[in-house]
Structures are given as structure tokens and as C-alpha cells.
């Protein structure tokens, strides 16, 4: 059955916020205002949004090097996110983590991760804590197609199944690992073919259709909450920009035609067409969401730019916790 207008508005809002944050980050990077690497989530908004719409702050997720979208979808506020990307003291990580390690424990976002595949074993630990406490929470691991070729993913998927943990494995299959197409790095087309090897159900979903993602993720998360164990959800999606940075056309490893075709299926436009067609949301609803997001972005950039840099005296703080007991 179709999601209610409120759910559709929420899904739309999550996607729009991701899009606006990422495009703003891209502009700032081009203006050389962001140090370090920048891996943008533009094009994949439906995945994080459709999944995280089912999660509360008490549910935990692990992320990847492409982590802004996951944090935004989990409720991340633009101001401390933008401040973190600028390396400011007011960032989510006080400027110590940056884009590749952005995180928010209060929101249950256990960190973007610079090591491909490394988030999934951590999600297993979070899922173990959920089961241990029997508090009904779940853990979701987001990861890319390329990361399913690394050992850590395999060990995590198998252990989650062996221990029957409330975990959901969400693969963002955008067909590339950095600058190399999937076909060169695996002999299968669908990541979901790996699920049976762990003894969990797997489902393929159109990663550009947020409603479809929302439905598939809902079943997997409900299954986890019900104590029936892990599932694998493979979302077929595409990143509109380069692996890192903001170039999107003229890339030597993929054709502009391919990019154009995928852009035809922009997840936000697809949802907007749908809700306007069936009248579940009005143009005014959509405009309001964009307007809210733009206002939040402007404030966030102003906040971040006005924020202080970390005090070099804090360099050695936070390496260890002072143990009191």
C-alpha cells in the first residue's frame, strides 16, 4: 500500500536536505573552502532516505567514505556538519574527523569510514548490543558494491547471520568502485547473489525510487526488530558526480551518455512527479521543503564560516578517555 502524504513529505524532505547539503559542499570545495577529500552522495539520496525514515536516534547505522547523506538522513544538522567539513571547532567532531569520519553518536550515526568495508563489522557490534539489551533497536550497515569484495564485509555478514542479530545490510550499488566498473572486479551482476551464502534473505530494489527503497527497507528492518535476523537490501543507484570532487562529465571511466541516462531518473524528480501526479503532495509542499533546506544551508555556511578553528592546544585531547572507575 502507498505511503501516506506525511511519509512522502518526510522522504522528500530527507532527500532534498541531502541534495542541498551535498551541492553546497561541492560549491565550497570548488571554491577551495573545504580541505581534504570530498565524496558526494548526490544521486543516491533515495537509499539513505528510504532506509533511515524507519529509524529512530536509538537505532544505529554505520557508513562509508561517502557518508554525508547517511548522516543527513539520520537527522544530522547542517551547521555542525558544514563546520566539520571546514575543520572548525564547532563541527560534529570538533574538526578532528572531517568529511571521511563525520559522525554523531547521539543520532546513532557511528561514523563515516575511510576504510572500505570497515563499517560493517562495527554495525555487527551495534546489532549485538541491541540484541544483548533486547531494546528493540536495530543496526543498519550502509556500504558500496565495491566494498562487498573485501573480507570485512564477508565476515560481518556471516557473523550477523550466525548470531542472528538485528542487522540490515544495505548495499548502494552504483556500479563503480572509484574509477573501475563492477564488471572488472566481480563475476556477478547483482550483489544480492551473496545473501544466500550467509543464509539471509536478499532483495534488489530500484535505488532511484525512494518509495520502493522505503518499502523494502521497512520489511528488512521489521524482520530485524522481530528477532528474525539480518537481511541484505541491494539498491541499484548511481552517483551523479565523480568518485570524489564535483566533476560529473568528461570522466574517462564512464560516458557522459551513461551519466545523462541516470540523471533522467533523478530520485528527487521521480518522487516529485509521482506525488504531484497522484496529488498526495502539492507544489507548495515541495517548494516549502526546498525553501526550508536552502535557508538551513545558508545559515549553516554562515555558522561554519564564522566558527573558530580548533585550538592547536587541543591536538592531544581526545586520544584517550580519562578512566575514573
Amino acid at each position, binding site marked *: 500500500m502507498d505511503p501516506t502524504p506525511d511519509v512522502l513529505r518526510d522522504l522528500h524532505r530527507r532527500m532534498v536536505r541531502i541534495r542541498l547539503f551535498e551541492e553546497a559542499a561541492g560549491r565550497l570545495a570548488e571554491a577551495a573552502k573545504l580541505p581534504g577529500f570530498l565524496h558526494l552522495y548526490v544521486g543516491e539520496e533515495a537509499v539513505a532516505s528510504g532506509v533511515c525514515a524507519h529509524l529512530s536516534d536509538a537505532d*544505529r547505522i*554505520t557508513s562509508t567514505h561517502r557518508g554525508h547523506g547517511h548522516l543527513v538522513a539520520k537527522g544530522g544538522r547542517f551547521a555542525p556538519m558544514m563546520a566539520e567539513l571546514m575543520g572548525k571547532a564547532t*563541527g*560534529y*567532531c*570538533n*574538526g*578532528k*574527523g572531517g568529511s571521511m*569520519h563525520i*559522525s*554523531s*553518536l547521539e543520532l546513532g550515526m*557511528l*561514523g563515516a*569510514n*575511510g*576504510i572500505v568495508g*570497515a563499517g*560493517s*563489522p*562495527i*554495525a*555487527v*557490534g*551495534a*546489532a*549485538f*548490543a*541491541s540484541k*544483548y539489551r533486547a531494546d528493540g533497536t536495530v*543496526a543498519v550497515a550502509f556500504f558500496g558494491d565495491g566494498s562487498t569484495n573485501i*573480507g*570485512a564485509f564477508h*565476515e*560481518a555478514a*556471516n*557473523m550477523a547471520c*550466525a*548470531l542472528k542479530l538485528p542487522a540490515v545490510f544495505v548495499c548502494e550499488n552504483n556500479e563503480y568502485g572509484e574509477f573501475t566498473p563492477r564488471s572488472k572486479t566481480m563475476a556477478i551482476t547483482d550483489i544480492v547473489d551473496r545473501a544466500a551464502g550467509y543464509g539471509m534473505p536478499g532483495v534488489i530494489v530500484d535505488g532511484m525510487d525512494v518509495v520502493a527503497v522505503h518499502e523494502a527497507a521497512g520489511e528488512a528492518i521489521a524482520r530485524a526488530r522481530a528477532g528474525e535476523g539480518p537481511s541484505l537490501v541491494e539498491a541499484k543507484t548511481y552517483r551523479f558526480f565523480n568518485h570524489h570532487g564535483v566533476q560529473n562529465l568528461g570522466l574517462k571511466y564512464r560516458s557522459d551518455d551513461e551519466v545523462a541516462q541516470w540523471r533522467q531518473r533523478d530520485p528527487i524528480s521521480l518522487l516529485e512527479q509521482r506525488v504531484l501526479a497522484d496529488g498526495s503532495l502539492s507544489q507548495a509542499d515541495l517548494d516549502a521543503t526546498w525553501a526550508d533546506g536552502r535557508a538551513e544551508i545558508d545559515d549553516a555556511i554562515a555558522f561554519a564560516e564564522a566558527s573558530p578553528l580548533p585550538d592547536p592546544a587541543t591536538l592531544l*585531547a*581526545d*586520544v*584517550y*578517555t*580519562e*578512566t*575514573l*572507575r
Partner: protein
Amino acid sequence: MSAPTTDVRSLTYVQAFNEAVRQCMEADDSVFCAGEDVGAFGGVFGSFAGLQARFGERRVVDTPISEQAIIGLGVGSAVSGLRPIVDIMFMDFLLVALDQVVNQAAKLKYMFGGKATLPLTITTAGGAGRSAAAQHSQSLEAILCHVPGLKVVYPSNAYDMKGLMVSCIREDNPTVMVKHKRLLGAKGPVPEECYAIPLGVAEVKRPGRDVTVVAFGRMVDESMRAAKRLAEDGIEVEVIDPRTLQPLDTATIVESAKRTNRIVVVHEAVRFGGLGAEIAAQIQEEAFDYLDAPVGRVAAPFSPVPFSPVLEQAYLPDADRIAAAVRSTLQRA
């Protein structure tokens, strides 16, 4: 804090480990254990014997052979508020999971801007001397001590094992507790109550005025043996066991070096890049004007651990080599 002289019941090193885990699990439901064969079987060294029977499968968990996921299980559950004890059967196997230890566990708090605590204890077994060959005999503590965010503990006796393990479990940072395979059955007096030995505090095992020997793990016994022999020749050796390798109690070592003016560092790991290098570097930095001889090092030569017992014996430092190093240090004008 050091072993009681009054007679208490004596336990083996591994029993002391087991009792520390049991008492901490009784005191705090957030403490659990996971690892290969730790459940029904109680661990290949008996470290976890009886714990699953006592606490159930919820708190004593058999895992697949998946060291990366085992450490990840610890990282993710610790950052979610539990106090995991995750076991990596042999120290050599840490190399399969070092990303999770070094890039994840050790750095997570810092990368998060301090907004996390990671009360994770990783237990493992190191050391040679059992003809276990190149992949089951390594001493890799120097690698771990080079990693900001980790603490590293290496007990030399049953009493320290219990007290240090209790501290590891209560510690709010990722800690690696290394058992020495050849000390598992070593007995010593261990009080029944749940006591803690603070991390980062060395123990002077034996006072002496002539030369200082720093040793940890099984090399403490070898050093004490050497010291006893040397005492017969009137050479008074002070033996210091750092017990915790990271953070290292440099103050105690330097203070001793300033008194004895001569110092030898001993370890089972290969000499090049071993912990002895760091200790020697720090001593010459902080006690330069007090040293009558270079800081000596007794360690394994630069090769993998050989299988054949005759070769392994030639490989491993022992009391003879320690005594010889002490004598040559003393011969220095």
C-alpha cells in the same frame, strides 16, 4: 601494589585471568566475552573455562573464525555502551584484524572529536617456546605500542594477571591484554577479592644497585634467574617489570637507571624496532649524564621464529644471555 607475601591460595596465570573475567562479569552485566571456541569449550587455553556455563550463551559467545568481525563486534558494541572482552586466540592472528584494531578501535574516539568512549578489552596470547613455529609464536607488542589510542598490558605472573585484567575490563579505552603462552600454568598467590592493579605502573621485582634490567612477560622470570646467578658473584641487579607497555612507566625506569647508571632491556620480540629500542631511546634522552654504558638490549635476532626446538632455543633470549649482557655492560669503563 605487588603480590602478597602472606599466604593466600595460589592460582595459575590462566586461572587468574579467568577469575578476573568472572568477577567483573558478576559485577557488571554490560561485560561480555566473545571469540573462537570461548563458549562451550572455554577457550583453547582454558581462559574462559566455565564462563558460558555460569553466564549463558548471551554473555559468552562463540564466534566464527572471523578476526576482523570479532574486533568489530567489540568496537561496535563498546561504542554502543557495552564492555566487550573479545579474544584473538594467538597474537599472530591480530595481523588479520589489525585494521579494526588500529584504524577503527584506536582512532574512533579521536576521529569523533572525543565524543565516544570505547571500553574494549582485546585478549590474546603471545610468545614463543612451544615449537609453534613462525605464525604462532610472535611477540608483536611493539606494533601495538606504536598506536595512539591503544593501551597494552603484558603480565608476567598470576597476581598481576588478575589485577591488570580487572583494570583492563574497567578501563574506558581499547586495551590489548597479552598472555604469554608459556606462563599459562605458572602458579602464584592470588587473592580472592576483585582487586585492580592500575595500568601504567611498573613494579620493581628486585632492588639492586649495580645494574637495572627491564623485562616483561616471560622474560621477567629469565631476568630474575639471571639476577640470582649474578648475585652469587656479588652483582646486584635491579629488575623492573613495566607490566603495562603502553602507557609505559618511564619514570620508574629512568629513576632506576639514574641510580644504577647501567641498564639492559630484555624482550622476546626481534631486536630491530622492538620495545627495547623505545626504552633505550627514552633512557638516553632522560638519563644521558647518568649512564656509564650504553643501554643494552637482549632480544631475538632478526628472523622469523623457527620450528625446530634446537633453533628456537638458539633464537630465544634466556637467563644466560641476560647475565652475559649484564656482565658486558658492567665491563664498560
